[in-house]
């Protein structure tokens, strides 16, 4: 599949050329950058380090209706399935996260809601050329221009983007806009590669995960868990903004005599998470919850699916209001091992 060039001036035409299908892309909403459905006049906002909210909510919405019903009745009404669409401007770390989470949602039973959106959408990445201060993707097998989980990758070449289709799905999408695309030159491809390498070198923080997945459970009772969780507020920032966190809760919402069953993001940092009906909670304090968050990402997930459920996007570090720093925790873990 050949790379192509999309001139920045033609972005509007490009979006138009994709036609009626849904297109999600980063949009500025106030100060906050997050993925949303592009309106007719909207242009994707592609000049950013990373979005506040990861694109996971495109495939795994924060709230989604499973079915509706009438109180006291037994009839259910399911919402109609989604149409095809595309997601543009995904950072490689977030795309990698999706491919990691895929294993979970197609594990013992296929999750139709997630998988349908995953297969229905085409995922266009945007290579990361200016890693953030807390990025550490390279420590976890990723890279600023990793292609895992993507159907195409774009690289910003100042006045244009180099577009590289990676899958058939990606190719098909770009064919639709063939008119606004040009053929890429070898120089274009080479300069993109150079930028990718430079970016990888810019990643400042890192962790050596060697041995962590196997040995983490041994630190079950270590003091470090208390130390790192003392200041935890028990809020959902680290998990809600994490591209790999995928826990959900199922709730019934009733209004009048009608109700719906829906699922929504949940967070293992909440006191209610794993709270039993009896009132007992095996994770009664922030210590156990923090321990679970790290163990789940760095040990349990590896056990089950062979990969660490962290892509090093750095959001949990950036946004934690009390400076709970996963790299700092991992450093302490390493020291304690």
């Amino acid at each position, binding site marked *: 599949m050949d790379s192509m060039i999309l001139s920045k001036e033609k972005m509007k035409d490009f979006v138009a050329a994709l036609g009626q299908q849904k297109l999600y892309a980063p949009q500025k909403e106030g100060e906050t950058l997050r993925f949303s459905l592009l309106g007719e006049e909207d242009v994707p906002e592609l000049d950013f380090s990373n979005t506040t909210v990861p694109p996971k909510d495109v495939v795994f919405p924060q709230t989604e*209706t499973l079915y*509706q019903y009438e109180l006291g009745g037994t009839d259910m009404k399911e*919402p109609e399935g989604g149409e095809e669409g595309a997601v543009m401007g995904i950072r490689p770390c977030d795309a990698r996260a999706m491919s990691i989470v895929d294993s979970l949602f197609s594990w013992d039973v296929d999750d139709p809601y997630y998988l349908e959106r995953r297969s229905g959408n085409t995922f266009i990445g945007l290579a990361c050329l200016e890693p953030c201060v807390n990025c550490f993707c390279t420590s976890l097998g990723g890279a600023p221009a990793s292609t895992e989980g993507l159907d195409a990758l774009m690289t910003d070449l100042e006045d244009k983007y180099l577009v590289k289709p990676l899958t058939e799905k990606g190719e098909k999408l770009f064919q639709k806009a063939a008119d606004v695309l040009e053929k890429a030159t070898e120089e274009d491809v080479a300069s993109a590669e150079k930028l990718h390498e430079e970016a990888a070198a810019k990643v400042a923080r890192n962790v050596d995960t060697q041995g962590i997945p196997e040995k983490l459970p041994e630190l079950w009772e270590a003091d470090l868990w208390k130390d790192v969780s003392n200041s935890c507020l028990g809020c959902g920032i680290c998990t809600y903004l994490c591209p790999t966190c995928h826990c959900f809760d199922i709730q019934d919402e009733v*209004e*009048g005599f009608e109700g*719906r069953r829906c699922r929504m993001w949940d967070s293992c940092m909440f006191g209610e998470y794993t709270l039993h009906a009896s009132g007992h909670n095996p994770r009664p304090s922030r210590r156990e919850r923090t321990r679970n968050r790290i163990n789940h990402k760095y040990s349990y997930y590896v056990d089950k699916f062979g990969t660490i459920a962290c892509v090093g996007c750095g959001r949990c570090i950036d946004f934690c209001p009390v400076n709970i720093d996963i790299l700092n925790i991992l450093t302490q873990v390493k020291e304690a091992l």
Partner: protein
Amino acid sequence: MSEQYEPNIVAFLCNWCSYAGADLAGTSRVHYTSNLNVIRVMCSGRVNPLFAVNALQQGADGVLVSGCHPGDCHYMEGNYYARRRFALMRELLEFIGVEPERFNMSWVSASEGAKWKDVVEEVVEKARKVGPFDQFRRNKINW
């Protein structure tokens, strides 16, 4: 706004004054508009201002809380608490962009059947003027 727009008002009435006043309006065969539906509580002090938020969210275009005149509360003080709480909630709702016309409070005594009618019509008229509430209504389309 469609021409047939009829506001839907949810009202919370204390049992001893306002509900009795509304009953008196009935006994006296005073006629008024049917846009307002009443939830009876024992005292206006029972009415959590968040009920008003909830009502707006769930389909009301306006809210009314009515209790005994100051000093006449059957429970001595309930209406004073209600007044303070609703003063705060009113400021808050207005600040967030809810028209103050949607958020009403009145004192109607057990003997003020005629006043009850006036209050109902005023509240409905005000809601009619500002149109359907659409600020933070639960949207079934999203369901």
